[in-house]
């Protein structure tokens, strides 16, 4: 009989300790190899510690919630075999591992959290010999000074062709390699271009960059894409646009969408809000101020249609047209470019089939309009050509649940597919 000591293995980048969050075994339990012993949590991931051996648990270290240092004893396992804590023959036979091979006694932990790269996955039984184990004659021939330069430049000398005697890599060879990049076949007339143009990020571009970074870094976005059958809406729009007048200019889809949003937001005021996350306060606005993202020569601007709830279809249309023109001219006032409580983004004919709109911080929702297209839709008996348009809408998942977001999107769909509802008093 032997006793095997299982220690808390190194669970990742710079982590010196981990919190014990779950015991999968207790004293007296029989475990087989790879059975889970415990789960530990670092600030990055929850990691499961499997048993490297088969045997009986005779001792467990620590209680749930304890902080355990890397390398400290986690459990003691009474094993049927001989000696304690000896490297397995397999581990002795294997070549010296690449950096950070897991200890033989403690197979590398498996992370539960997604997208987390552990230093090394599970036992890697056979490995290619690492560079240091190559026979001396196989190493690239280069002086120590050139080797050092290569290391500092991150160049693998095995990729560099040496021009010196016996294929020795000279400093010039290395410089040329660094300037040129790895050798690759090149066709005539297709020259590599190595110049880099620096463009200073200033002004509006810098403000956009900051705003986008702020939004994406603070807000966990949830994006819902839904298709909307706008055939009826388009028929209505065509009819209304037949005789445009000065008071009643041509309508785009936008004013219909704005009216639909006003309706839907009346039912879900939590979406027409600004979330002051520093203060931890959500301010729901009674007035619906819709920002309309507009591309201008100098970049993205978001003029705001104030009090959309108090504007009818034509009023919305006129205000959008007026603001868009002022934004393009560069004459929009600061007031006209701020104060929105929710935003619409539309790329018009470039609108693609789906987008992942970035919320206009500190708002909590944004509605993206995708390109309209005639698509065959199944009407129960046959395919019929329908005018279809997708809406891609993002929500701040910290304060908006998926359910509420979906209800909002479905409501917009309903209102736009049956536009008469827009004109019926609730």
């Amino acid at each position, binding site marked *: 009989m032997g006793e095997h*000591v299982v*220690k808390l293995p*190194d669970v990742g980048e710079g982590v*010196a300790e981990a919190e014990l969050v779950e015991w999968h075994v207790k004293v007296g339990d029989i475990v087989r190899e790879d059975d889970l012993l415990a789960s530990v949590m670092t600030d990055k991931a929850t990691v499961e510690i499997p048993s490297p051996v088969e045997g009986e648990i005779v001792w467990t270290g620590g209680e749930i919630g304890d902080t355990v*240092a*890397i*390398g*400290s*004893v986690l459990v003691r396992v009474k094993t049927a075999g001989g000696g304690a*804590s000896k*490297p397995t023959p397999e*581990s*002795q036979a294997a070549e*010296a*591992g*690449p*950096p*950070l*091979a*897991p*200890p*033989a*006694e*403690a197979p590398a932990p498996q992370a539960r959290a997604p997208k987390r790269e552990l*230093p090394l996955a599970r036992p890697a039984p056979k490995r290619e010999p*690492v*560079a*240091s*184990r190559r*026979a*001396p*004659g196989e*190493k690239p*021939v*280069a*002086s*120590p000074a050139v*080797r050092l330069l290569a*290391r*500092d430049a*991150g160049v693998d000398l095995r990729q560099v062709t040496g021009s*010196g*005697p*016996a*294929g*020795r890599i000279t400093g010039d060879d290395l410089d040329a390699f660094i300037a040129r990049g790895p050798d690759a076949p090149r066709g005539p007339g297709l020259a590599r271009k190595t110049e880099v143009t620096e463009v200073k990020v200033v002004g509006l571009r810098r403000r956009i960059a900051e705003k986008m970074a702020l939004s994406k870094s603070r807000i966990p976005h949830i994006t819902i894409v839904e298709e909307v059958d706008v055939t009826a809406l388009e028929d209505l729009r065509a009819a209304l646009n037949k005789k445009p007048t000065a008071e009643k200019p041509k309508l785009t889809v936008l004013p219909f969408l704005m009216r639909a949003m006003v309706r839907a937001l009346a039912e879900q005021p939590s979406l027409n809000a600004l979330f002051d996350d520093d203060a931890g306060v959500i301010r729901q606005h009674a007035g619906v101020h819709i920002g309309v993202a507009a591309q201008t020569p100098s970049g993205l601007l978001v003029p705001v249609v104030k009090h959309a709830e108090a504007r009818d279809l034509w009023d919305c249309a006129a205000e959008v047209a007026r603001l868009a023109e002022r934004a393009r001219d560069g004459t929009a006032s600061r007031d006209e470019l701020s104060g929105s409580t929710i935003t619409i983004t539309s790329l018009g004919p470039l609108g693609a089939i789906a987008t992942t709109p970035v919320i206009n911080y500190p708002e909590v929702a944004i509605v993206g309009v995708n390109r309209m297209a005639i698509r065959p839709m199944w009407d129960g008996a046959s395919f019929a050509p329908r005018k279809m348009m997708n809406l891609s809408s993002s929500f701040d998942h910290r304060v908006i649940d998926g359910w509420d977001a979906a209800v909002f999107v479905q409501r917009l769909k309903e209102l736009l597919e049956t536009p008469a509802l827009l004109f019926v008093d609730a």
Partner: protein
Amino acid sequence: MEEIACKLLVIGAGPGGYVCAIRAGQLGVDTVIVERGRLGGSCLNVGCIPSKALIHVADEFEVLATAAAGKSVFGLTASAPKVDFAKAVAWKDEIVTRLNNGVAGLLRKARVKIVHGEAKFRDGKTVVVETETGLTLIRAEAVVIAAGSAPVELRFLPFGGDVISSTDALSLPEVPKRLAVVGGGYIGLELGTAFAKLGSKVTVVEALPRILPLYDQELTAPVARRLQELGVEVLTGAKAEGASHGALRLAAANGHPKKIAADKILVTVGRAPAVAGLGLEELVLDMDGRFIRIGERCETSMRGVYAIGDVTGEPMLAHRAMAQGEMVAEIVAGLPRAWDKRCIPAICFTDPEIVSAGLSPDEARAAGHEIKVGQFPFSASGRAMSRHAERGFVRVVAQADRNLVLGIQAVGQGVSELSAAFGLAIEMGATLEDIAGTIHAHPTLGEGLQEASLKALGHALHI
């Protein structure tokens, strides 16, 4: 308990450890070094340095003894020389102390904190040191294990009394009249030769068929011949079995039991990593037999824990440890480094000396190289003649097609100093033409390297 937090903790202030600490200090890494004995490790205190000091004393004595015996070929005479061995040992100790202080000064200059005591791992980031004044807890982001090695003890010849290790042999009160050396490797032969020159009757017992089994026979033959001239009895294929009543018991090559009268029995059968008591069992590191397994960055299987020098295996050489230590310090400081050395020269300070850098002809062939070999005998060297040291040669091994030098070996008096040229040539990726085309100053032993290269190219000038 006193607590220290640092970026780098080095365990062991031998050549690997102190170089690592100094380099780390130079790079601005907050470094602590722990040593249980004296600074400098085995190399400085009980290895390279003191043994070379005693070998020097023996060489000087032998010149006088040869003259006194009327055997000087160039007509030196002397009256019967004597050695005050206690004074020789004291001189050696003074050198060691000076170097101890030198290491301490270098560490201080690099702002390295020195902690004296026994280190024991608590976990991969924490080490407890038992100092004279109590326990000190050291927390470090990176730990380098540079604990070194100690002489291997034979179960049937435990150290103590007249059975001594290489460490003891360097501080004997007097020259033993009869010395039995168990183990015909370089340590046993270096010390055995020195004591033979100082007047001991030396017998070497080697279990393998020849002495210095790690070197090819061509290189070791001049050493074997010289041992014979010095009156050293070499018993190969013989196995030591124990000690009794002032004698070493052994089984001779023919299997017959044999007794060799000996005042001291020096056991030099190798060195083992000195990791006991370090608490390595707390870390569960991957091992290579007795040694700590490392990768090309000297990293162990635990992140942030590095190992350098003798604890990581053969070749157990101070200069290997130093190079590893320097590299690890730079890695800890965040620089991109990995082990890419082409050769680690090795020297036997026997008489004559042996130097080997890179691949021997056999090793090169075994590695799959088509080779050409050039050899230049010192009997054709004016400088060797004028030193009365004509025995030995320089040998160059190169790739047959590209003339890339793969290895250089030499045996001869004073060839240890040629190791610098050998190592430089191989590390720079020199070809035979590079060496042949370099002017070598005349008259020196180093010309032998140029001539051996010319020989390999087919146009030696002096043979």
